[in-house]
């Protein structure tokens, strides 16, 4: 009779668990919670039921209750990947980043019963996303580099990886993946990604070309349009751009000089005692007092001027705030030169 009683309880537990699963898949998480609780009343020790109950609670926005269940499960099975992943999500939701990171690590290095490679990869993706969203780009980089070392095979995951690498400040790795995606299947998304990566790498000409290609694939793409315009402006303003004539190089350099001189004067008027700006003014008076446009045909002279121009824009941005218009373009060119010198 005892065996019959136990069998009946198991049967009831299975039945209620099945109902709960159906309701959970149908999006009725609240009802699923009640059903999983009923299943647990007949089979209180079942970790699967408790896990599913925790999932249903999370989907019902009952995070604290889910946390309590998951913590008690974790105490029994601290190495279980799924439990660690769910706990990480709970703590991420509560903005407890260090706890979330700890449990994401547990999910990445934990035991998974089914498809461990995929699940660990997803855990790493989520962790990287979390770190980036909290401004911890450096920590995110190490996770993304680990992902890139064993890259996923599906295009969706490759795109996701490349996007995250770009956000994490690894544009070269991102570019490699975008180019790989272009080779496999030339899409507007891959072109746009490549354009963004090239732009981050200060390769404005390449960025312009990829953005144009992305716009051709998707004429409605606002991001492609914006990137196209910005990269085009930079290409046109860059005195060091490849493929332009010596005259254009000279004209651009002189235009940049005039712009920077004006910026310097305006900034000095507002901050007359700034030592850096005063020094730059002295340098201008000393080195460029007799500068003419034609002087800039000479490459060395041009480089001297451009160095001075980039110093002025950088110092003025620090002292007088972010520039606008063409000054902003010059500043961006100066920063790109600094980054990729």
């Amino acid at each position, binding site marked *: 009779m005892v065996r019959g009683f136990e069998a009946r309880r198991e049967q*009831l537990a299975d039945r209620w668990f099945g109902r709960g699963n159906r309701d959970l898949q149908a999006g009725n998480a609240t009802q699923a919670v*009640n059903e999983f609780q009923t299943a647990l009343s007949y089979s209180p020790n079942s970790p699967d039921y408790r896990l599913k109950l925790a999932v249903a609670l999370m989907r019902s926005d*009952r995070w604290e209750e889910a946390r*309590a269940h998951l913590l*008690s499960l974790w105490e029994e099975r601290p190495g279980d990947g799924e439990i660690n992943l769910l706990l990480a999500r709970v703590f991420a939701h509560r903005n407890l980043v260090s706890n979330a990171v700890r449990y994401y690590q547990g999910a990445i290095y934990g035991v998974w019963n089914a498809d461990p490679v995929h699940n660990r990869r997803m855990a790493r993706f989520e962790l990287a996303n979390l770190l980036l969203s909290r401004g911890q780009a450096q920590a995110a980089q190490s996770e993304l580099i680990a992902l890139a070392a064993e890259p996923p095979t599906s295009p969706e995951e490759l795109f996701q990886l490349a996007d995250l690498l770009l956000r994490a400040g690894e544009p070269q790795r991102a570019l490699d993946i975008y180019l790989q995606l272009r080779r496999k299947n030339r899409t507007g998304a891959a072109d746009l990604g490549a354009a963004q990566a090239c732009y981050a790498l200060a390769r404005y000409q390449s960025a312009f070309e990829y953005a144009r290609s992305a716009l051709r694939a998707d004429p409605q793409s606002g991001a492609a349009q914006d990137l196209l315009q910005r990269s085009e402006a930079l290409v046109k303003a860059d005195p060091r751009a490849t493929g332009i004539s010596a005259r254009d190089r000279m004209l651009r350099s002189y235009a940049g000089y005039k712009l920077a001189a004006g910026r310097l004067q305006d900034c000095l008027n507002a901050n007359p005692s700034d030592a850096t700006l005063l020094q730059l003014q002295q340098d201008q008076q000393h080195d460029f007092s007799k500068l003419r446009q034609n002087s800039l045909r000479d490459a060395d002279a041009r480089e001297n001027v451009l160095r001075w121009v980039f110093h002025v824009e950088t110092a003025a941005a620090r002292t007088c705030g972010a520039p606008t218009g063409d000054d902003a373009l010059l500043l961006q060119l100066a920063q790109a030169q600094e980054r990729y010198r």
Partner: protein
Amino acid sequence: MIEPLEQHGKPTPVRRKYWQTLGSLLSGEILTLREEQFFLVLAIFIGIFAGLAVVWFRIAIEMSRLLLLGSSLRPTFPRVVIVPAVAGLFIAFLVIRFFPRARGSGVNQTKGALYIYDGYIALNTVIGKFLTSALAIGSGQSLGPEDPSLQIGAGMASFLGRKLKLSRERLRLIAPVGAAAGLAAAFNSPITAVLFVIEEVIGRWSAGILGAIVLSSISSVVVERWFLGDAPLFRIPQYHLEHPAELLAYAVLGVIGGFASLAFVKLVGFLRTRARQMPAWAHYFQPAVAGAVIGVIGIWFPQVMGAGYDYMDQAMHGQFVWKVLLILGALKLIATCLSFSSGTPGGLFAPTLFIGAMLGGGVGMFVRASFPQMTVPVGAYALVGMGTLFAGILRAPMTSVFMILEVSGNYSIILPVIISNAIAYFISRRFQKTPIFDLLSRQDGLDLPSLEEERELQVLRVEDAMRSGDGFYLSGFDTLADARRSLADSPESFFLVQMANGNWAGIQRSEVKALTSDDRVPLATVVDTILPRLHPDTPLDYALRQIQDWPMLPVVHRADYNRLLGVLKLDDIIRAYRQSNVEHAETS
């Protein structure tokens, strides 16, 4: 050489000796067990049978619930109202007509067997308790299975003891042995069961009964876990004291729990009295009315129906907001008072723990919401709350502390438990002098001893009664002449005589006068009766047994028997008891 069993067709001496030995074995001459040892062995079997009975009892409760209310934790309307009401009618009929002694929780009935009925619990009562309690709890009445299990175990033990024709003394003690077994199996906690039976049923510790109770509890739990698994009644979350300020919150829980306990006991006392005062025909409907009211509550809060262990588990895992927890605690309190006062058979353990879990969880959730910087483990508050209400309502403080330790397996929780339990017990004791079990027994017309009062009675010792020994003793080395001179200065009629090796003798004045020996002989040579010695910390009860017909006894130092600290007379003992009674009456 091995001697043959037969020679020339006749049994040899070896064979004759073999049969003699076997005969002795069968007649019990060689393997005779003393009754104490037999009692211990019997305790194991009682535990096994009680464990089996509790397994069947739990199955019966579960099957009743499935049959009557369905498998969902939220029974539908109108089933949720009709079932408890109709079942209540049926239960009342069974109890009143066939099983009148099945009424109540079972604890007082077991105490009654011990103190009044020489250990007798009728088998009819056991069967009635089993059936009616299973039906009551399964149909949703707000009662628990532990107390009925206690009575079922006690009843089975009583039945076994009668069949085995135990002595009257052993038969009286066998009921608590079975009670502990039944409670241990029901609660899956042997230590809690042992402590509760000793604290609330027997009221004393003695090696013989303690051994039997422990053996029966362990064997019943083994049987119960064999059949139903070793899953705990509820899963306890891990607990660590994060900040000492948390102890304040537990103190607040103790205060709340104390007043909640008070409300519970007062309400039960009030309702039960009113219910019993109603005409006899009304008694048939009281369980039905209670069931209907609980069913109506159950439409919105099905958690208050039945024992409620699932919901205690949920409370420990923070599954309710604090307002809901407090509401559930209050509703369960009302529902249990209704069920119990209506005369429905069933226990108070589980509802007490439920109310405590809800109140504790509510306090914990409130503290967490109010002080987010404190990482408050709500489950710990629920757990401590259970112990708090147990201490406040059932007034078993030691059991309440060890129960929490046993179910949680976590000793770091002992400090909050002690603080909260002590406060609740103090409040309950302060405003409700009579504990609930004593209150119920007096309402039933039974004058059972109050074990709480016995615990708190001051133990009188010899030092509380003795008087100075000056003028009452003579040295054994004194001569008869010296002794007679000493006697002339004293009005006493009896004297102690200090002998060698720390012994003390006694001699009457008249005996000294009547002695015709040489005056120069030492007194020690003419006295021969050695008196029993007492010590200041000796219980006065023991001294009373020792004093017998002696006019007085010596009170000596434990490390130096020659050092007389005082003397004790029978008058001194009686005076001390009288004084203690006066003081006790003044303070109570």
